């Protein structure tokens, strides 16, 4: 069980690799040295904090309500982050929270309802973290792509509206395109699992001494979970956001967010 041999001294030695990174930055004049050190220091501090917090939820006798509250906080943080990355043109924090919450609820219901994992904090919080974390990038991408589609293809959308199509029908090809662009990276990652890279959950389990076959099963379930979560989050987001591009009487609004 390799993970049990890990000590603070071992961690300090792994810091040699950070020093190599900083050295390369200095050597090639990348001017990234301070950023690298801040990023690594911040990661270590955040992991220490989250590790301490996880103690509140992962032990068998910890109340499950704390895990649920943790998930609510993650969703709120992801929604605010989505808003910040998309910009102020569209107020989407509520919609983003709904999208993350919907995907999380469905995934949690499937995973724990069917007994794929046992419902306890040790499983609930890390799995929800993977769902929300992996969905964040795709959610931001689908929002920015939708706004770009509405902006760049205004003539095409209005040509469909002029033919008597509803706003949602007129925008459907563009929603399709934005969703494909947001989902394809996750599908590609799913395809390359085990060939191009060994995913984190599996590596963690193997390092912790879990049987490889069992680690593979867990990792496959996690990959399906992430794929489902990313797809559901982006779909809810795309439907909700694209509806805001149109007035009730099927006119295309200016995509800067004003009505």
């Amino acid at each position: 069980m390799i993970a049990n041999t890990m000590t603070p001294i071992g961690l300090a030695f792994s810091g040699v690799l950070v020093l190599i990174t900083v050295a390369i930055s200095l050597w090639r004049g990348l001017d990234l040295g301070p950023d690298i050190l801040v990023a690594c220091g911040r990661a270590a501090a955040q992991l220490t904090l989250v590790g301490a917090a996880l103690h509140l939820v992962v032990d068998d006798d910890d109340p499950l309500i704390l895990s649920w509250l943790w998930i609510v906080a993650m969703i709120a943080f992801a929604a605010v982050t989505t808003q910040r990355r998309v910009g102020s043109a569209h107020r989407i924090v509520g919609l983003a929270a709904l999208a993350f919450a919907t995907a999380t609820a469905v995934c949690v219901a499937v995973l724990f309802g069917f007994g794929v994992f046992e419902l306890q904090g040790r499983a609930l919080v890390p799995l929800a973290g993977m769902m929300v974390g992996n969905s964040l990038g795709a959610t931001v991408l689908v929002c920015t792509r939708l706004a770009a589609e509405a902006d760049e293809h205004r003539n095409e959308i209005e040509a469909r509206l002029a033919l008597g199509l509803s706003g949602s029908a007129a925008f459907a090809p563009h929603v399709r395109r934005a969703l494909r662009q947001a989902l394809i990276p996750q599908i590609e990652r799913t395809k390359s699992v085990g060939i191009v890279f060994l995913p984190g959950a599996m590596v963690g389990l193997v390092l912790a001494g879990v049987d490889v076959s069992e680690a593979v099963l867990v990792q496959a379930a996690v990959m399906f979970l992430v794929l489902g979560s990313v797809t559901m989050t982006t779909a809810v987001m795309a439907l909700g956001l694209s509806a805001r591009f149109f007035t009730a009487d099927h006119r295309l609004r200016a995509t800067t967010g004003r009505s």
Partner: protein
Amino acid sequence: MNTSNLALNGVSVAAADRQVLDGVDLTIEATGFTVIAGPSGAGKSSLLRLLNRLDVPSSGTVTWRGDDLSTLDVCAHRREVGYVAQHPVLFEGTAADNLAVADPSLSPDGRRALLARVGLGDIADQEARTLSGGEAQRLCLARTLATGPKVILADEPTASLDAEATRLIEQLAVDLARRDAVAWIWVSHDPAQIGRLADTVVVMADGTVEATGTIADLATHTDPTVRQAVGAQ
């Protein structure tokens, strides 16, 4: 009153930096050719977009057959009062696919027949975006016809076409008006084209209607810009 006309009653449209339309009162009968003339920036295209309800007025009302457009089913209205843009906008897929966007229930034979009506009978399976400018505009017209419009709003539909393509579109429009009783509201600032098509001319300038009448009426108008718009000195 339930007459077949489109009317603007005290309609103004304000943009961020200027008044696009300013208190326009205008009634256009849904018959024959009504040409909206006037220089660039007069408000012609904005007026057309209001009639298709792609835009709404800042103040005033727009009516179709006496009913305020804001009270009508806008999708049904747009199918009845169609719109053809200045630059042809084609969708992905074949010419037939483009017609299916307007009317998914059209059979393959129905699509070919519609294309034949605009002189494009043999291009049903051709990629729409490979068509020439004139063919593309005729396909846009066929797409609008697929919705069965009573009126077609045409925003300078020949502005980007050569003389031969312009002639074909005009001939097609005249045939549709005569044979199928499709009324046209056609934006143009080409006096020669106005002379060829117009039953009624509406001359606009600076967001207002300067004059309305037949070419003969307007050729003797006191305002020289109105006379100029219809090609008279």
